[in-house]
């Protein structure tokens, strides 16, 4: 299986994505930001779509979209009103619809949409891998540099602000990091499944550890392991049994299953402890 060049490339991409998604996913967990992360995958869609058709590299368009969405979302959430979530949801829906409009002007509507939403891990090319690696280096670098401020802000925003740090700046940074992960993962696994990579592994890791660095490491490890498992499953199902299993979806399902198993185990252990006490 690993002798196939396309499998090697797919595996490499998954491992790179594991690093960047695991790390940023931990940040998303700590910031309780899962909804915003999901929102970003939708708001970035039109920018990504436009870039795809303008003939630019997907990467450039996605980056532009990332910046625009980040600014908009951060500004929006800083305006603290009661109907916060509904405005955000409106923005999400509008952007996504705009993206669909852009895509539908093209004749090859359905297949392009499918690629954008679900990616194509099996036909990932060298330039995509390089881009993913670059984004990973940048993102991990930023996290190393400002990680302590990010955690502080998430834990105690009042004290953070009192010390003179700019909340808005750091929040924009967080959103930008999430957007960058979406850029990295979009081509390989699609915008629809990126959320799975950002949310599920960190949530699972949280069940297992109380320490942020460990949560990060476990998240990365989980994505790597489930990525390998999902790819393998897709390969074996296709080659041995003529059953089509889309690799991105397989990875997501396996990640969710692992979470389910661990969550249930945790619940049962706590219950048993309570009874024993």
């Amino acid at each position, binding site marked *: 299986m690993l002798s196939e060049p396309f499998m090697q490339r797919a595996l490499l991409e998954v491992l790179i994505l594991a690093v960047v998604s695991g790390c940023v996913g931990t940040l998303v967990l700590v910031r309780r930001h899962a909804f915003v992360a999901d929102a970003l995958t939708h708001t970035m869609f039109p920018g990504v779509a436009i870039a795809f058709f303008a003939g630019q590299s997907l990467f450039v368009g996605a980056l532009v979209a990332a910046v625009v969405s980040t600014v908009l979302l951060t500004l929006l959430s800083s305006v603290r009103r009661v109907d916060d979530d509904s405005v955000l949801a409106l923005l999400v829906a509008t952007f996504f619809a705009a993206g669909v409009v852009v895509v539908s002007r093209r004749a090859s509507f359905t297949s392009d949409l499918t690629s954008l939403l679900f990616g194509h891990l099996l036909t990932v090319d060298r330039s995509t891998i390089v881009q993913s690696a670059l984004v990973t280096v940048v993102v991990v670098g930023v996290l190393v540099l400002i990680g302590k*401020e990010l955690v*502080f802000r998430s834990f105690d925003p009042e*004290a953070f602000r009192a010390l003179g740090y700019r909340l808005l700046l750091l929040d924009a940074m967080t959103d930008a990091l999430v957007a960058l992960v979406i850029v990295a993962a979009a081509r390989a696994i699609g915008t629809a499944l990126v959320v799975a990579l950002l949310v599920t592994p960190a949530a699972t890791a949280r069940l297992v550890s109380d320490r942020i660095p460990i949560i990060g490491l476990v998240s990365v490890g989980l994505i790597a392991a489930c990525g390998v498992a999902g790819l393998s499953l897709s390969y074996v199902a296709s080659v041995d049994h003529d059953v089509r299993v889309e690799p991105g979806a397989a990875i997501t399902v396996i990640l969710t299953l692992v979470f389910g198993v661990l969550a249930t185990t945790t619940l049962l252990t706590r219950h048993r402890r309570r009874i024993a006490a």
Partner: protein
Amino acid sequence: MTDAQPLCIDSLAVAYDRDPVLHGVSFDLSPGSSLAVVGPNGAGKSTLLRAILGLVPVVHGSVSVLGLDPVAARRHVAYVPQADSLDPEFPIDAFGVVLQGRYRQVGWFRRPGRSDRAAAHAALAEVGLSDRARSRFGTLSGGQRQRVLLARAIAQNARLLLLDEPFNGVDATSQQLLIDVMGRLRANGVAIVISTHDLAFAHLACSEACLINGHMVGFGTPDEVLSSEHLAHAYGPAVHSLDNGTTVIAAHTH
């Protein structure tokens, strides 16, 4: 820096979009003093604290912290929030929280060094929680969590501390410990401002009191300021006199 007055407020008025929320506040704090800020909810206690931090628009008067503009003085001021306002599930241990007090000193992009970690350990020891350094913050009791937050302020080497209702949900032992630590800090010249409803504490542990209800009702020693008439003026019907002469404020739910 140590000889400058920790706090000088002169005819302070704060307004959000022409809505005056606080006015007529004037007082000075000397090093080593502790000020109880007392008043009903919505009276402007938080606003006053924010003004000291330079976080709200001042429309009249001035605030001077350690001889500086509040914004410039920020790294020497520590804000200690209520422990209950923080997420108990957050994956951080007590030591990690205290270390946050050093971040301004460490600066962006760098990691805390040996001296920073030593300062954090010392601060934790000061509040008697060295043995819980590696416990997750949320697993500690309310009183212990409040002590950790105070330790963070100590690690920061702040000259002025702002405490927001520090005794809510805190057990008696921790309360006493907090008061003891505050006493030691004061002996070192640190000034402390405490926003509180606890009149007994104000009488017991504070050198000054400031009564607020949209404006400053009074400033002086707790005995002078926290008289029944002043309190009635500020709190209205929530004030009661017990048979033994003590004045209490009826409890509210937050």
